């Protein structure tokens, strides 16, 4: 079975973004970009399915700027066999990405699509579920374990208060949570090998999809700043202050 994983190029986890002075967005010029961490977990999960013989081919798909090819190269270095870039410089919102991914899925006919549960830039957490609905496929979000057997996926999900296990009829959508796996360290030989793997570049217009944003961003501002408080010398002072000043205990 073919497996597709979707990967997004985002501002690196360690970068603290700044809001632009004109409040039009955040300034991402000259900041380090990386693969969304949850997507890395998705690529690792797909690669492991191939390594245990459950998947025959792993295709990494990204939607966005030309530079997303770098993100696809990272996916290929982890273990994806080939890449597809849906290239556009439009501001992509989750619904547009889901429509583009649906078009790729219809072309490639995978049995499983694995995505990160959330991108750490827009924090929307929608794409996997949107894609599942557009395809009328079942979904398992926030996965911490995935087992594939006889046309079904048995998935353990991280839910409020604990875990939940559900079974999905394939083809299906899975979105990854933190503990699904620990992505491997990408070695130099695998990076070299990844350079030789093919990346196909397509455009939204090839699928007849208009990727324009539908939600209008009116402004983007800094959050209210929380003022630092006081340092206390010892436990007794702390308890005293919590009782008499903050009155919370």
């Amino acid at each position, binding site marked *: 079975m073919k497996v597709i994983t979707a990967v997004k190029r985002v501002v690196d986890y360690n970068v603290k973004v700044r809001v632009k002075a004109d409040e039009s967005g955040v300034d991402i010029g000259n900041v380090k970009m990386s693969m969304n961490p949850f997507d890395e977990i998705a690529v690792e999960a797909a690669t492991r399915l191939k390594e245990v013989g459950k998947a025959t081919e792993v295709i990494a798909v990204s939607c966005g700027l030309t530079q997303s090819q770098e993100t696809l190269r990272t996916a290929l270095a982890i273990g994806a066999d080939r890449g597809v870039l849906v290239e556009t410089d439009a501001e992509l919102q989750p619904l547009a990405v889901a429509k583009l991914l649906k078009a790729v899925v219809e072309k490639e006919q995978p049995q499983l699509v694995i995505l990160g549960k959330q991108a750490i830039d827009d924090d929307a957490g929608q794409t996997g579920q949107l894609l599942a609905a557009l395809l009328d496929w079942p979904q398992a979000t926030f996965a911490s374990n995935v087992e594939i057997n006889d046309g079904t996926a048995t998935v353990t999900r991280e839910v*409020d208060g604990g875990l939940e296990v559900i079974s999905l009829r394939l083809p299906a959508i899975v979105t990854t949570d933190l503990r699904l796996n620990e992505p491997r360290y990408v070695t130099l030989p695998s990076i070299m090998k990844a350079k030789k793997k093919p990346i196909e570049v397509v455009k939204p217009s090839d699928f007849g999809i208009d990727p324009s944003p539908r939600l209008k961003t009116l402004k983007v501002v800094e959050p209210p700043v929380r003022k630092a408080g006081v340092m206390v010398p010892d436990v007794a002072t702390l308890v005293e202050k919590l009782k008499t000043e903050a009155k919370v205990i």
Partner: protein
Amino acid sequence: MTTLVIAEHNNAQIKSSTLHTIAAAKQLASGVHVLVAGSGAQPAAEAASKVEGVDKVILVDAPQFADGLAENVAAQVLALASSYSHIFFPATAAGKNTAPRVAAKLDASQISDVIAIESDDTFQRPVYAGNAIATVQSSDAVKVVTIRTTAFDAARAEGGSAAIETAPAVADSGLSTFIRREVATSDRPELTAARVVVSGGRGLGSKENFALLDPLAEKLGAAVGASRAAVDSGYAPNDWQVGQTGKIVAPELYIAVGISGAIQHLAGMKDSKVIVAVNKDADAPIFGVADYGLVGDLFEVLPALTQSL
């Protein structure tokens, strides 16, 4: 103009996230209907009907809703959607799971994790782990929204007397099957609803040491949380994680123990009323948001603090 709030419930009771979501819906100066889709969920529907500000409760009772499978719940919401201008879900694991399936079928751009409602079509939401707040405007006919529950005070659970109407259930999708749930039973309050949260970080050093938070939490009637670093290190279960990709909490008192304060963690707790930080590193960023900071060895501070309460 009417808003449909999708209740989160366990068939017997509605969860507090539902009360916060109803409160958000009431800000829209519109009617508020609550959908309770469950199995044997009459008690939950009755509880919803008593919430202040609810105009009508729609109960859909069928076995295929027993476990909240997203495919079935979304299909049920879609069967009712045409009567509504807004559909609100709590931004909890269950709400986040289901809402986009509804949005996709309505061809609507979902607005996730709303923290403020400016008008019928304009909402504020955090992006980049809360390092920026975006104001977004939707032109969709039906606005599908998930509500960050900590940003809205809970609606009163008593005082209302809405009618309960039953609606026919959509068929089971047959796409997915619930197998089992492993939910930790605890006498402690739920993390997102607790008045006090005691959270531990990598500074605790081990799973065994993490249990040192228990006596303090016990004394304060607190829920226990964890930083991503502590979860990653296996000290605490994932559903205790507070932060950008975990739970968002805003208790009256948040005590961060051995947590350095990465921006991703701060995103999950900086709206707490009072923040206490205990860390051996005086330069830890957590002190930048703490109301009371104590530099010290947590293995000495924790027992002393527990003792003195």
